[in-house]
Structure formats: structure tokens, C-alpha cells
């Protein structure tokens, strides 16, 4: 029993990793540009289909990651320039517009690839696993997911805290009007952030495709999970993403093990509701300076 719980805790890390990978793109776009991107799940879906195409052409997941980042990033650019840039200051409209974009993306994907589930294989060199404790090996691919999550978090931290663009992004996040007055091109920052966030969603799709199912409707559950992570962790803070994903992922795996999946999920939702009641802005919520 103890052994199983330890194994469970370990595989919980991979679930946390999946949540972080899926939520990062949404967190950045929501946190900086202030856009609730309802098409986030579909961005992940497009990333997964990109991985499927790369797989058909003979590449593996490592090739698919940069390809998906660029493809979905360009898609994000198109959507930002074409639609979102005109409605940044109207939250309700961005919500509806990105939702519409999501529906269009689903339909177009279905027209191109057909409605059936799509096959994406996992890379050969990551097959199998290593024994830690207990009966089950820990799969290499799950370890790979954990590493990807850490690298992505590090990358985002680097961009936000160590580059000039990051400085501008933080300035815009703090006070858009003053940042503009000081000569920062806020529209350009918004665009960069939207494209970067979209690209991250693409990566999420590419790395999740080999162990999950790929279909045009696959994005929705990831979008829901991502929103839960943000709401719990707090919008606009990267530590919030890590904390939210960590709490939800571990709580859900351990509770599901002790009780069952349905009750596990239920308790996690309950936990989120109570947390929001006590800390409305999330655990690492960002409080505006007044």
C-alpha cells in the first residue's frame, strides 16, 4: 500500500507536468494581454495534429516540438493581427471572438483530416521505463514530460525576467497607460505575448499527443483543466501556474487512488471552490498597485 502510494505520488508528477505544459500558454496570454483565450484548447489540438503530420513524414516528437511551436505561433499571429488586436479592450467580445475562432479551427481541422480519431505514435527511444519502487515502472516518456515542463517554465521565466521584451511585458502588465507613455509599444508587446503563448499551446499538443487521444474535439478538457489551474494558482503569476498545477495534479491522482476517479475529481473541484471563496485572486494572485 505505501509502495503504491509512492508510485502514485511519482506518477502524479507527470500529471502535474501535463497540467503545467497545457496551462502555460493560456496563463501568459491571460496574464499579460488580458485575453481569455477560449480557443486555447483548439491551439493545443492544432499542435497535436501538427505532431501527427510530422509523424507521418517520418519525424518524431523532438522534431514535432519546434514545428508545432512555429505553426501554432504563426496561427496565433494571424488571429491576433486579424481579430484580437481590434478588441483588446473589450473582454466580452474577445471571449466570444476567440470562442468562434475555436469552433472554426475545429471545423477546418475536421474538413482536412476527417472526423475520426487520429494516430500519433510515441518516439521509440522513449519507450519502456525504469523501476523506482513497487510493481510498475515509471515510463521514460513521463519523465520526458516532467523535463519538458521544467524547461518550458524556465524558458518563460527567462523570457519574462531576463530579456528586454520581458521587461516591457512586465511594465505593460503593471500599468499599461504609463508603460505606453514611457515609449513602450504596448500593441507590439501584446502581439508578441499572444504569439508566444499560442506557440506554447502548440508544444503542449505535440508532447501530449503520443499518450492521449487525438481528435478535433480533444482540446476542450485541456482548456477546462488549464482554466482551473489559473483560477487556483492566480492570474498573472508564473508561480501560480506551478502551484495550481501541482496542487490539482497531486490532489487528483492521490485522491483518485484512495477513493476513485469520480470522487477524486469532485473533491478537487470542491477544493478549488473553497479556495476561491477564501482567496478570490488565487494562491499567488496578483494584486494591482493602487
Amino acid at each position, binding site marked *: 500500500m505505501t509502495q503504491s502510494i509512492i508510485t502514485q505520488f511519482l506518477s502524479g508528477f507527470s500529471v502535474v507536468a501535463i497540467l503545467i505544459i497545457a496551462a502555460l500558454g493560456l496563463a501568459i496570454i491571460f496574464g499579460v494581454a488580458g485575453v481569455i483565450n477560449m480557443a486555447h484548447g483548439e491551439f493545443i489540438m492544432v499542435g497535436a495534429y501538427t505532431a501527427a503530420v510530422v509523424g507521418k513524414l517520418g519525424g518524431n516528437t523532438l522534431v514535432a516540438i519546434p514545428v508545432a511551436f512555429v505553426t501554432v505561433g504563426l496561427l496565433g499571429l494571424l488571429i491576433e493581427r486579424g481579430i484580437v488586436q481590434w478588441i483588446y479592450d473589450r473582454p466580452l467580445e474577445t471571449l466570444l471572438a476567440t470562442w468562434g475562432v475555436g469552433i472554426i479551427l475545429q471545423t477546418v481541422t475536421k474538413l482536412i483530416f476527417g472526423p475520426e480519431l487520429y494516430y500519433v505514435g510515441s518516439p521509440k527511444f522513449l519507450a519502456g521505463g525504469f523501476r523506482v519502487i513497487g510493481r510498475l515502472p515509471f515510463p521514460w516518456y513521463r519523465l520526458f514530460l516532467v523535463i519538458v515542463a521544467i524547461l518550458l517554465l524556465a524558458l518563460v521565466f527567462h523570457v519574462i525576467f531576463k530579456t528586454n521584451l520581458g521587461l516591457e511585458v512586465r511594465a505593460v502588465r503593471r500599468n499599461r497607460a504609463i508603460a505606453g507613455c514611457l515609449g513602450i509599444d504596448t500593441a507590439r508587446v501584446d502581439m508578441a505575448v499572444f504569439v508566444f503563448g499560442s506557440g506554447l499551446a502548440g508544444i503542449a499538443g505535440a508532447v501530449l499527443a503520443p499518450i*492521449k487521444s487525438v481528435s478535433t*474535439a480533444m482540446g476542450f478538457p485541456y482548456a477546462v483543466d488549464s482554466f482551473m489551474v489559473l483560477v487556483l494558482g492566480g492570474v498573472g503569476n508564473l508561480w501560480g501556474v506551478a502551484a495550481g498545477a501541482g496542487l490539482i495534479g497531486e490532489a487528483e491522482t492521490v485522491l483518485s487512488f484512495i477513493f476513485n*476517479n469520480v470522487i477524486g475529481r469532485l473533491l478537487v473541484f470542491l477544493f478549488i471552490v473553497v479556495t476561491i471563496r477564501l482567496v478570490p485572486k488565487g494562491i499567488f494572485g496578483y494584486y494591482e498597485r493602487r
Partner: protein
Amino acid sequence: MRKIKRRTFLQSCAAGMGGILAGGTAPYFFTRSIARAAEGATIKVGILHSLSGTIAIIESSLHNAELLAIEEINAKGGVLGKKLQPVVEDPQSMVQVFAEKAKKLLLEDKVVAVLGCYTSASRQSVLPVFEQHNGVLLYPTLYEAQECSKNCFYTGAVPSQQLDDFVPWIINTLGRKKFYLIGANYIYPKETNREVKALLHKHGGQTVAEEYSPLGATEFSTNINKIASSGCDVVFSDLVGDQIVAFYKQYREFGITAKDIPICSPITTEQEIAAMGPENAAGHYTSFDYFQSVGTPQNKVFVDRYKARYGKNAVTNAVMQAAYFSAFFLAQAIEKVRSTDADALIYEGLPGQEFLAPEGLVKIDEKNHHTWLWPRIGRANEQGQFDVVWTRKNWVRPQPWVPYLYPNKTCDFSDKRVVERLKKPWSQEKDRSGTINM
């Protein structure tokens, strides 16, 4: 009475004119009158499957199979010298839209029958419509049974047809007795598992655990960990849709092979195997009445025609096959009674109808409107197909209520008392189920 104000009247006139102009060559009511004029030459058949939304993944293939069957019937000269004309509606995977579209097909298009629905929820939402307006529905999905409707003919398997032989076969031939049951959290898996547990009790097997996963959840590391530490020697899965793909993939990812603990399922088809990759399915078992690899001559013709029509990578499966032969049942029934009258079809045409389907000779039961089928067990191979490892020597009677769980329940549409009750107008007698408690 509602008064028509002059302004609203003018507005609707303007809107109507606009509609005609915008519609170009053939505005709505013109096409309708043309359609009505041509009505004598064709027999309309409704096709009601989602072509968009979440369930479209599977339902569009049923739609394809039914269109293929109708084309074949028409190529052989149609029915009563007339062509069958498919009237296609897309209920968009939304339960309430199914009912609306069914109503439209029955009242507006006046179709002779509807081939349609996939999920139990959609069937249950359209049944009252068919019962009230006395339509005929042919429903192709395997489902949890325990239902009978005068207006519905069920051409898919009921659980007993898939489980009665499968569970004892796992215990005796595979020699595995400790079952771990995992399913999606809704009615079909729960009812199926009820029967599995009863059969395990009867044949000396054992239920180690029974678990349900929320619909749409695709993370199974927890369940797989539990399976590994539970001491079971076989997993019985009634997960559905994209869950199947994620579960089999992660099962192998965590290093459990089909040799250690095989997965046995009454619902995993060739379609899901194509999506997960044959390497993830090889060695696991499925019980169905039909597999694409079934060796009958009529199946070879069916698969060849399907591939010729929909591409060489198209795969067939059990539900599609049922959808396919449903259309032939309907055509033969209309020929038999030489009429398109619903009551004639329901009481004389369809019951007892036989057809040499890809899986073998199938028949609609005279009493309960379900279908006699040929249970088989398949083991998935490296090519993404099933090797049929066991076939029943005779076809199996459909039992909507299995006697070992529901000893006193059955339905019988050939029973005089039931027919009398059903012939009363709908407003007086709303129970169309044909069930009798003995």
C-alpha cells in the same frame, strides 16, 4: 386570436421577398413543391446521424454505411419499383436537436422510416417522437438493453449477446478468474458490468474491483497503478470513445503487456485501434458479432465496396455493419407488405425479417424487435485487425432482459394483449413498450 398588425405584415412580406432574392434560383417553397411532385417516384428514408460535434467521429461512419446500403438497393432496382431517397439530417451531436430533426423527418418529409441515432441518450430523446407520430426507427448500436418500443427496431447487440459467451470463455479458455472492471461513468458501462458481475458469480470468477472514470477524462496513470497492485489477472474495460485510445496507450506505456494482464472489452473496435496504433492493442481481446476480418464471402464484398466508396484506409466495424444491414431489413420489409404504412411495417414487415449480412444470417426477433446475431471473440493483431479466435456455432437470440438478473421481465409484440393495448390511440395509451410482467 392574434391580430396581424399592418407593420409586422409588411415587414414579413419584405423579409419574404428578401429571402427569395437572396435564395437565388430556387427559394424554399418552390423546392418543396417540386419535391412533393416527385414524391410518387421515390420512397423517402430518413438518415439521422451527427455529422458535426463530438459524436460525429463515429456517427459519420454509420451515415456512410447506410448511404452505401441505399445505393446498393437502388442499383438493384430499388423497392416496389421505386428508388429509395435518403433524407439526411445532422443533429450536431446535441440530444435535443435529435428530437427536433426526428419530428421534421416524420411530419414534414414523411419518411417511411428513419435509420439513426448512436448514443442511448439520443435514442431516448427521439423515441417519444416516434411513438407519438407512429414512425419507424432502426437503431444500429450495441446498447445496455432493458428497453422495448413498438416503434423501434434494435439491430445492434444487447449485452447478453456479447457477454454470455465471452465471460465464461475468459475464465475457461484464457484461464483468468480475477476481473478488474473499468468503465466510463454512465449507464451503458454500469449495466454491462452488472451482467458481467452476475456471470462471474455464476461461472466462478471474481470481481477484484469496479471503477468508473468521468466521461472525457483521458488520464489513466492512477487506474493503471491500481490495476497493477490489485492482483487481478484480467481487465474488463467498457471505456468509450477517445478514452479507449488514451487507456490502451498508457497501459502499454506503464509496461503492462497483454501477456501479463490482457484487456477484454465489449466495445473496442477497429476504429479505436487505428487511432491508438496496432502496437498498443495487439494481444487484447474484444467480443463482437462482427469484425472487419470476418471470413464470410458477403463480408469481403461489403469491405471491398466500402473501401471503393470511402477510400482504401477506411475501416469497418460492428456498429457500421448493423447500420448497413438495417437498410436491407427495411427494404425487404417494404417489399413484403407492399406498402409504406408504418403499422404494416411494425406488425408484419419488419418482425421476423431475415438478411444474409456480412456477419452471417441475421433476423429481427418477432417478439422483442431486437436482432439475432453471431457472437465472436477477436484478438487484436499487429496489423490493427482482429484475429477471430472463437465463433459461436449458432446464432443467439436477443434478450433485452437477461433471465439471471430480471427473471420476470420480457417484452412481446406478438402477444395479443400487447397489440390491443398498442393499437389504442397515443393520447389514451402512452405506454408503447410492449413489456409484460409475468
